[in-house]
């Protein structure tokens, strides 16, 4: 994937570019807002990682300019401003996701990949299939192979989100934001307990597990 990083802090940019290249992406870097906007409008990128505070131009202005010229490239906004209304403003300006600095690189990767998948689009379906697991979004039923699995509403939402991102890591923060719509770091392992309950239902009694824990990052639902 071809990515554009717009970040004025040299050390932060170097770290980000290095990490992304090691994950197999092609990365261009712009050190200020103007250069970033020129690159973003003249070349095609699969996603843009954009610092909010830039010399010469507010990051949000770049997103707004891109969207105004019908450029729908997914944008992940990075910002040291972590108040909820900053987040809302960032998303309103046309950003696709918002990550507060400092962030864990694994969190950034997981979110970026979710964005890239969203950008890739896909067929509109009422069923999600991951290996032998089948989720009917209309009937709200789940089967694994021939076994019907009973889920509580919140477990269903959790599984649905994992299935939509099947094969990729989703972090605890992403789950808390997307499934429960909360933006805080719980001090207890709430998400882990929800996952282990879900795991009880979809993996117990089957030879191979589907719901995996990725150490230091999050969870991943994969075909067994």
């Amino acid at each position, binding site marked *: 994937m071809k990515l554009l990083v717009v970040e004025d802090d040299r050390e932060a940019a170097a770290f980000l570019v290095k990490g992304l290249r090691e994950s197999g992406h092609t990365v261009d870097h712009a050190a200020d807002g103007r250069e970033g906007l020129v690159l973003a409008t003249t070349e095609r990128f699969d996603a843009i990682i954009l610092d909010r505070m830039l010399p010469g131009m507010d990051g949000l202005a770049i997103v707004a300019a891109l969207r105004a010229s019908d450029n729908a490239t997914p944008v992940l906004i990075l910002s040291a401003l*972590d*108040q*909820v*209304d900053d987040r*809302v403003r960032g998303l309103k300006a046309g950003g696709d996701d918002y990550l507060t600095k400092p962030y864990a690189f694994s969190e950034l990767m997981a979110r970026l990949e979710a964005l890239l998948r969203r950008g890739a689009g896909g067929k509109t379906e009422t069923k999600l299939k991951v290996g032998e697991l089948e989720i009917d979004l209309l009937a709200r039923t789940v089967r694994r192979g021939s076994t019907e699995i009973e889920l509580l509403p919140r477990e269903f939402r959790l599984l649905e989100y994992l299935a939509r991102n099947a094969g990729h890591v989703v972090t605890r923060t992403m789950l808390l934001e997307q499934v429960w719509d909360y933006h805080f770091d719980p001090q207890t392992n709430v998400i882990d307990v929800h996952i282990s*309950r879900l795991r009880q239902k979809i993996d117990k009694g089957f030879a191979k597990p589907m719901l995996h824990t990725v150490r230091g990052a999050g969870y991943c639902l994969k075909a067994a």
Partner: protein
Amino acid sequence: MLAMLALIYWQTVVYATQQTDETIDAEITGLAEQYRQRGLAGLVAVINERSKPERGSSMLYLLTDQRQNPLAGNLSRWPDLEVQADGWMRFQLSDDGRRKGGPHIAQATSFVLAGGVQLLVGRDLSEVTAFRNRIVAALASSGALMLVLGLIGGIVLSRRALARIETINRTSDRIMAGEFGRRIPLKGSGDEFDRLAQNLNAMLDQIERLMAGMRQVTDNIAHDLRSPLGRLRSRIEVALIEPPSTERYREVLQQTIGEADHLLATFTALLDIAEAEAGSPRGQMVPLDLASFARDLADLYEPVAEEKGLRLTIETGPGPIEIRGDRHMLSRAIANLVENAVKYTPAGGTIAVKVAGDGGMARLTVADDGPGIPAEERERVFDRFYRLEASRTTEGNGLGLSLARAVVRLHGGTITLEDNGPGLVAVVSLPLAPEAG
């Protein structure tokens, strides 16, 4: 003041003039009555009676025949009458010795009776004039006195006001120069200046309290962030001293990340508290059903409670409880209360979340049957970084309740900790949305 004096003059002098008119009118009515009943002879008798100098009256009478020869009365001859605009006649009265002073004005009216007999009834205006002169003199002198007194009073008052303002100025100069404990002296009179001084002093007290709070917080931050930073540093240092080992380095780096995350979480919590205390983002306040909000949170925490062997119950009643709030901030605040209950209640216990609305307030309570908090500590645990001795070893940064209180206050509500006998109950009161019944 001039207008007031003019009013007094007008009121008294006009009244006196009216009195004169009325007296003459009454006299005429009386005489006419006598004349009707007793004829000319009776009239003469009455006039003679009334004209006796010893009566000391200021009334003037003159009854003459048709050639104006006096028949009765206290005037020597028919005067030269001047008809005035007001219908009365005026004439010069030369004093015949009975009255003091020189010639003066009299006011009169006259009639012609049957047989050419003429009657004049009048009143000597000397008294009225004298009265008017006295009033004018009195008003003029009192006016002058008032003017002088007013000037003196004004000067004294403004000098005193300026002196008090100067006192306030001097005090603020000294406070600015660093004497923060100094306050503006009060006179104890309870006047506007005292009230101003009281308000300024109260403001200074408030600022001093806030400064002390800030200093306390800064000290706490310095202390509570120094220790983890110190740990972090020494861990890295030790790893570098040890023989090189990739495995060991990985482990230390993992731990370091964990430590850094913990520090970042503390910073975030501090910033959130500061933001909530600054009371800025009212724009985010939207209608919110506290009942479903509590159900969502209970839903999030129910599994983790069960994992610990606790029962988490939720009771909200059937209808919505409408408040205005910022869901994200409130969720952080209330989640802290639930997390505390989960953390400190031993296995087998129950955590009860309840929402009810009454008397314009919505009440959300999180009750547990854990060890509780001693009464004297229940306020202090809201202070930043304050942790009970018993919980020092438990994970946490001592900011959860501070954040909860700041957020609830931002929403115009209150939060208290009470005895649940046994256990603790956190009571959050939030104002109901105005449109809710």
